[in-house]
């Protein structure tokens, strides 16, 4: 019996340890952090961003690819903001991945975040070889934006479309 307990303890210890290691590994390192007055945005290449698409915890992640110049993206942003606010205590996290050109981050993206007072986490993706990473987001993605991934652990859905708040809520509940 004692043996079993100690074995169990060992297993627990080992699994905890590997869990810690995993957490450390998934802290991505940004290429650059842009800051302006009250807003700041971390810029990643795809290998950095990929960690945000693979989190293995109890949170449902809603990852939206957008840009400040993309009219349908900007139109649907309030719906993502509302989702982020309404589901704050229900383990739903919205991540807005801007693919604005790097030279537009300081001139357009940061002012946009301030003007619209965005509360969801905004990150910037700077990886021009899109052919190398689009399929890694989802094989069905043609590359057009807006595009959204909704996932929790290994349950995952991808959408190349615009969302109303109701549609977004329905899709989030599917993986909830």
């Amino acid at each position: 019996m004692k043996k079993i307990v100690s074995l169990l303890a060992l297993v627990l210890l080992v699994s905890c340890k590997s869990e810690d290691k995993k957490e450390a590994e998934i802290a991505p390192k940004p290429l650059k952090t842009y800051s302006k007055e009250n807003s700041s945005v971390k810029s990643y290449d795809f290998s950095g961003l990929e960690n945000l698409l693979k989190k293995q915890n109890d949170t449902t992640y809603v990852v939206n690819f957008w840009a400040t110049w993309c009219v349908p993206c900007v139109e649907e942003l309030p719906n993502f903001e509302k989702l982020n606010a309404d589901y704050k205590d229900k383990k739903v996290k919205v991540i807005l991945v801007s693919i604005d050109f790097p030279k537009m981050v300081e001139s357009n993206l940061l002012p946009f975040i301030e003007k619209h007072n965005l509360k969801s986490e905004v990150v910037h993706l700077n990886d021009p070889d899109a052919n190398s990473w689009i399929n890694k987001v989802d094989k069905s993605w043609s590359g057009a934006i807006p595009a959204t991934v909704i996932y929790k652990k290994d349950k995952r859905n991808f959408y190349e479309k615009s969302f109303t708040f109701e549609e977004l809520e329905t899709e989030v509940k599917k993986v909830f």
Partner: protein
Amino acid sequence: MKTTIKIFAFVLLAGLASAFTYKTTIASGYKVGDIATDFSLKNIDNKKVSLKDFKDAKGFIVVFTCNHCPYAQAYEDRIVALDKKYKKLGYPVIAINPNNPEKQKEDSFELMKAKAKEKKFTFPYLFDEGQKIYPQYGATKTPHVYILQKTSKGNVVKYIGAIDDNYGDESAVKSKYVENAVDALLKNKEVSVKETKAIGCSIKA
């Protein structure tokens, strides 16, 4: 036990259902090897243009592009360069604006004329009036390229995708997908990279 089976059956069914909806959303438009439709679309000089008008062409570099999209704009000079290089070799550029100006006012026919003048387009810049041609090709964004080879059976799709692998910085391009494909076709060789993906602005229909 019964409930487990029920749950299992439900999950299976749900999985199946989602698999089907998934399929219907992606299976549209041309694949490499398909015969592309010809069209008769209005050019910026108000004349209609069809692929059959190009008697001496060996094929076409059809580019769905537009005025407003920053990705399309980033490629404007490169599209002009493609036409300059390949028109004389038998592969002219045919640009088509698939957007509905009622949804995206910068993509109006009048502004297409202004764009062509400003950027000195050397190729037809056609307006997909009523947004009827782009869905047949399966274009989803701008820019989106289809390379066609003229054969006895019609214009065969040989490549679908991006112009090259770096929209932001032309000097950092490693793979010129379109040039490589046309070069291969001109040598009667198989196109090695037949499909690529790129970020672009969704088409506004």
